[in-house]
């Protein structure tokens, strides 16, 4: 796989962040925080009657982007920060660009800047990832 510094990673789109998926996620995670399933409580925080996406779910959109780009066992490290919340109904797009290509052991690695794009706001998630590049 030919990859160079400055290459854009093919984007991955979540058209509609789903409150139902947040509820499923809360159950699987045993996450008691009502911000993920009680819109009336979230309204008291000033976000309207919506629910707040779990941080790991936002992170998973970045993982899906990387998997589609370099394969399902390619991720070596992912570091995410969460400057803003994501709410149900949001459309978000995972994006990234290559910042370095290097060799480590038997692997060719790409370091990337990654972020989640949401129209009209600063990126709600941003961070870095390192992936192993497929040979060939």
């Amino acid at each position, binding site marked *: 796989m030919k990859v160079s510094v400055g290459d854009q990673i093919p984007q991955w789109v*979540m058209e509609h962040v789903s409150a139902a*998926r*947040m509820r*499923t*996620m809360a159950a*699987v*995670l*045993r*996450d*008691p*925080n*009502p*911000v993920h399933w009680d819109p009336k*409580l979230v309204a008291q*925080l000033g976000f309207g009657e919506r629910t707040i996406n*779990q*941080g*790991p*779910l936002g*992170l*998973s*959109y970045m*993982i*899906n982007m990387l*998997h589609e780009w370099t394969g*399902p*066992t390619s*991720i*070596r*490290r*992912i*570091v*995410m*920060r*969460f400057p803003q919340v994501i709410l149900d109904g949001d459309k978000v797009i995972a994006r990234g660009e290559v910042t370095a290509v290097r060799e480590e052991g038997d692997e060719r690695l790409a370091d990337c800047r990654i972020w989640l794009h949401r129209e009209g706001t600063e990126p709600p998630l941003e*961070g870095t990832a390192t992936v192993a590049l497929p040979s060939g």
Partner: protein
Amino acid sequence: MASKSPPTREAIQRLVGHEFPGGEYTIAHWENFLLTECTGGEPLPDGLAHPVALFHMPILGAGTSIGEMFALGEAESDFSIGIESYDWEIFGPLKEEVRYKISGKITEADRKETPERTFDRIQFQFDLTDPDGSHVARTTITWHYRRNLS
């Protein structure tokens, strides 16, 4: 969760070194299926688990819970927790139906004060090894526990 008085800075600092009991965790097929569906992604091949499991499986496998992690830092409410970062290092593929050994501890804890706000920054670190003893992943969770000290 009811509001309460904030802990002292010293009480927060004493959390460093706290170790969870440790234990094991197996990602069931149904669990991986549901998690993957939540991400909007396609199921992964060859029994691979979606890495999004690296949030909850270390926590539960180490013998703790999100609720206990809130309580350890004496969160003032469920709304008072903010995420600083998640750092996931993946050394080997994560798979369904494999019993991983998991250990976890608090590696950093201190009070931070800025002109805008006061919060306690607590960092949790978890390590996963597979049945052969290979280190499969390390996850580091850093949360902010916002304080209302006025």
